[in-house]
């Protein structure tokens, strides 16, 4: 798979990375690098012996898989323009996480039910698992990585911290994006309006009350939205 090869034209350094670059020493390994490396080791350990032991297994012939159709698109992600040749079948989520390496957006159910993958497309919350990257030509996307300004989290993110809105944290990026869109449209929502705006974002920890409190605490603050584009 060439899936992890970045072939966009975004200038180096414009794609925010969530963690510092890994240095030469083992202590500099990031969590993501470590998990990626150990998964590969487990797969190798699990698969290799079974192939060797099963003498009757038919020889697996690697068939040539025709290249999946690709299309060139241009789009803006967190204010940075990208030109990218995407596979037609990539979801927006796949594109953001696996190809732009913007892993702040999570993938939960991958069936438009949980909301963990919520991003803003031209300002509106959308499930990135349920739309295609190829349909994003000309669009402006905002992800959780785009909420901070000059190294400071948005007022909404700060309120999430202060109100303990994240427990396990997996739904948080999606909750933040849906709430950001709400506050940009309605700076002073009622608690009921917050609940209705976040109805498409499930929290497995069931921390809904704290999430609503955090959004209300951040409301009315212009800085809560992380700015527009």
């Amino acid at each position, binding site marked *: 798979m060439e899936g992890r090869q970045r072939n966009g034209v975004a200038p180096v350094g414009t794609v925010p990375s969530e963690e510092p670059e890994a240095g030469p020493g083992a202590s500099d390994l990031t969590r993501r690098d470590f998990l990626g490396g150990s998964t590969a080791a487990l797969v190798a350990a699990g698969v290799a012996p079974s192939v060797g032991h099963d003498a009757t297994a038919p020889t697996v012939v690697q068939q040539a898989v025709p290249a999946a159709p690709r299309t060139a698109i241009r789009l803006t992600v967190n204010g940075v323009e990208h030109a990218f040749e995407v596979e037609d079948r990539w979801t927006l989520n796949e594109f953001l996480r696996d190809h732009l390496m913007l892993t702040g957006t999570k993938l939960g159910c991958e069936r438009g039910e949980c909301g963990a993958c919520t991003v803003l497309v031209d300002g509106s919350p959308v*499930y990135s698992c349920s739309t295609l990257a190829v349909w994003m030509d000309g669009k402006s996307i905002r992800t959780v990585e785009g909420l901070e300004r000059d190294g400071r989290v948005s007022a909404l993110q700060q309120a999430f911290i202060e109100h303990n809105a994240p427990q396990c944290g997996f739904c948080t990026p999606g909750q933040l994006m849906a709430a950001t869109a709400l506050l940009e449209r309605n700076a002073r929502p009622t608690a009921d309006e917050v609940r209705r705006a976040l109805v498409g974002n499930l929290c497995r920890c069931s921390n809904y009350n704290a999430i609503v409190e955090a959004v209300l605490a951040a409301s009315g603050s212009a800085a809560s939205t992380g700015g527009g584009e």
Partner: protein
Amino acid sequence: MRAFVNRNARSVEEAVALAREATLAGRSVAFAAGGSDLLQLMKDHIPSRAEAGEPDVLVNLKGIAGLDRIESAGDGTLRIGGLVTLSALVGNALVRERFTALAEAAETVATPQIRNVGTVAGNVAQRPWCWYFRNGFPCFKAGGDRCFSAGGENQLHAIFGGGPSYIVHPSDLAPALVALGARFRVAGPERERVVSGGDFFVLPRQDALRENVLADADVLIGVDVPAPAAGTRSAYHKVMDREAWTHALASAAVVMVMDGDVCRSASIVLGGVAPIPWRVPEAEALLAGERVTAELAREVGTAAVAGARPLAKNAYKVPLTRRVVERTVLALAARA
């Protein structure tokens, strides 16, 4: 997902031509509007059209200019493009004021994220959400030869119009559109045609593979809702097994033409209880020319479910539907 080609159509003619071209080349085609439902089916390897198989080609309709508009024609007809999103419908002041049931139906659909991409055409033409169909059972809707719900887990299934398949039509817009007398505009390889609400949706006993008359190269390009007569008011009431983000257990779209406290005429269309939006003419007739009292509303509710034939596990839907109709009629008569 299995690999496929996305083709962006710039016009309805181009969309139909791209679909034809692909079909002639032996490739299966699906039209994509919002895509939420389509991509889900594709991820689960469930054909969006039983006869067509999984799509090799997606014809993306989102770039077609003009289909995302809501317009009022000279005679007051509301012309809604097929690509109008549910969010746009919810936020449209004219729809809210004059076609209230439609706005109320749209805002009960799914979640903001889905309403932001989901379209009028896609909502009306979505495939059933029967758990057997969606989990890959070879049922009638998937081109198979039986309905697993008939003798299985049929809590959410039809109490009207079932057989041989017992799916319920999943759309919230559809009952509201039919109650408001909407006509469905369909483009295809032949000339554009207009289909009434009564003819657009088809029962399983007419065609078990489909929920509507759309053929493979047909596109639902919009719906026209006639101008309501003076004194018309409408409402949509949906009951779910939780407060949001699911389909109707039972719903009712009610349109009443009022003259003071007398109802001149009414149309009542049920959702969540039949394979198509289910009209109840006997209940409607009880309202014509009458003052709407609590007692009459109760009778209307009773008449609405007179023809119900529940399955083993969904008899609860009968009193539920009766009360949904009764309450909606009463509330609508009291609405200023």
